[in-house]
């Protein structure tokens, strides 16, 4: 199976990464190589096998559902490319 121009447009949109037209061929070629590598998995019959989602095969511990204090707000806001008082500024999203 090979990645198409249509696939790459969809992936670019989903991953929110712009891909220039001039780079598309090369991106497709390299992605195809990787897909060929991972398709070796398809030879294995895994019908009766449970998926393993945790490296130690244990379930995720849960913490108490309590509020935690956060006191370092100003330093975090300063990191934003654009911020004002308690907000990060982004381009207008509602007309």
């Amino acid at each position: 199976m090979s990645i198409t121009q249509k696939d790459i447009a969809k992936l670019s949109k989903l991953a929110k990464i712009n891909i220039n037209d001039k780079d598309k061929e090369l991106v497709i070629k390299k992605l195809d190589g990787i897909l060929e590598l991972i398709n070796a998995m398809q030879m294995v019959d895994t019908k009766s096998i449970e998926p393993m989602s945790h490296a130690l095969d244990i379930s995720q511990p849960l913490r108490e559902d309590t509020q935690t204090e956060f006191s370092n707000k100003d330093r975090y806001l300063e990191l934003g490319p654009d911020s004002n008082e308690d907000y990060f500024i982004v381009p207008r999203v509602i007309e």
Partner: protein
Amino acid sequence: MKNHLTLKQLQNGLQNKDYSSVELTNYYIDQINKYNNSVNAFITVDYEKSLAQAKLADEQLKLNKSSDLTGIPIAQKDIFCADGWRTTCGSKMLDNFISPYDSKVVELFNQSGAINLGKTNMDEFAMGSSNETSFYGNVKNPWNLDCVPGGSSGGSAAAVSSGMAPAATATDTGGSIRQPASLCGLTGLKPTYGLVSRYGMIAFASSLDQAGPIAKTSEDCAMMLNVMAGHDHRDSTSIKRDKLNYLDNLNDSIKGKTIGIPKEFFNSDLDEDVKKVLDRVIDEYKLLGVNFKEISLENSHLSIPVYYVIAPAEASSNLSRYDGVRYGYRASDYQDIENMYLKTREEGFGDEVKRRILVGTYVLSAGYYDAYYLKAQKIRRLIATDFKKSFSECDLILAPSSPSTAFKIGEKKEDPVSMYMQDMYTISTNLAGLPAISAPAGFINNMPIGFQLIGNYFSESTILNFVHEYQKQTGWHQEYPEVR
């Protein structure tokens, strides 16, 4: 002062007042000034901060309030957030990011009185096996400056190998501690998944990422792990266990123990020179009374395909946070918010990172989830089960650390699949969550290469014991390059 002292020797030197922490820190600063231009192992140094820590350490040492690493400079991989330090993860995306908090690992080193010597270069977001994907230029192998140091912890390995740092922190998602340790002639330990907190360690593939040390000896790795290991409530995958002293069992006898030899790793695909080196490791362990037994890891050939589904899938999710809104890079020219995301991520990420995000997005996208991600998780269980069975037959498993010695800079850069093969002997342990070490095994054409020992869950003490016994009998770990 002598070059290439171990942590143990430095601890003794500080306790005996042969030198102060300030003098020691200044010594390593001199080494960095001398060698970093040619090796490029550090992205950020802040001598003022390091020396301020050293002054405090000297006070602790005077008051005899010190712990093993008090006053010793340690290099930190630039994946660990450190309060007030620029923390880039090797990416343009975080070029301007000054961390507002400490990762758990950095916090623990600070508490131990160790000095943060600086932040080491790495493949961008830890995605790479050669350090060539770093936004800050490739690191060079101190043994041969035309060669790669391995990756992704190549800066950490090159810093220690060249004598710019006595030890360094590192992380291993598919081999990123063990492969550079092998290629730079060092000892590097990837602990059991969950032993070291991932809090503040910039995420790549969260079900695989694990922090560990790169150092000169097994004993030094034990000293580092004594600081790094421990439960942390801020990492929900961190395991609650009693804290061990990894120095306690270093000198235990290994006579009568068994090392398994996986036939799938010692087949005709194994490079002949690497095999010769490993045969010598086997002979040396036999002299120590260790038995060898052939075992089978029959699904190990599926590790790379499975990894290149699971790791990019998790990365595509983890790296969605880099959107140009709250921190890091934002494109300067955009029309609307959608366009800002698209351009920020196009310009802020390098090619390999973008490639892995796209692969991860593909395997998780509608219609493909079962065929890729779910399938990979199922085979991951088969791989883990092979190890489980094997550990009923042996104490540890011997494997190559890397398929070859360090390759030339640029040699594999344009062919991602051939680069991915670098991790063919290391990836299966990440998928299973097991601990493994790489330690120096000798040289091929004057370039170092390591051997790998893989252990059962939480068997770090046994692994360190086996390598310490080996290093008492051999001198490969005491060979250092002359950087020109």
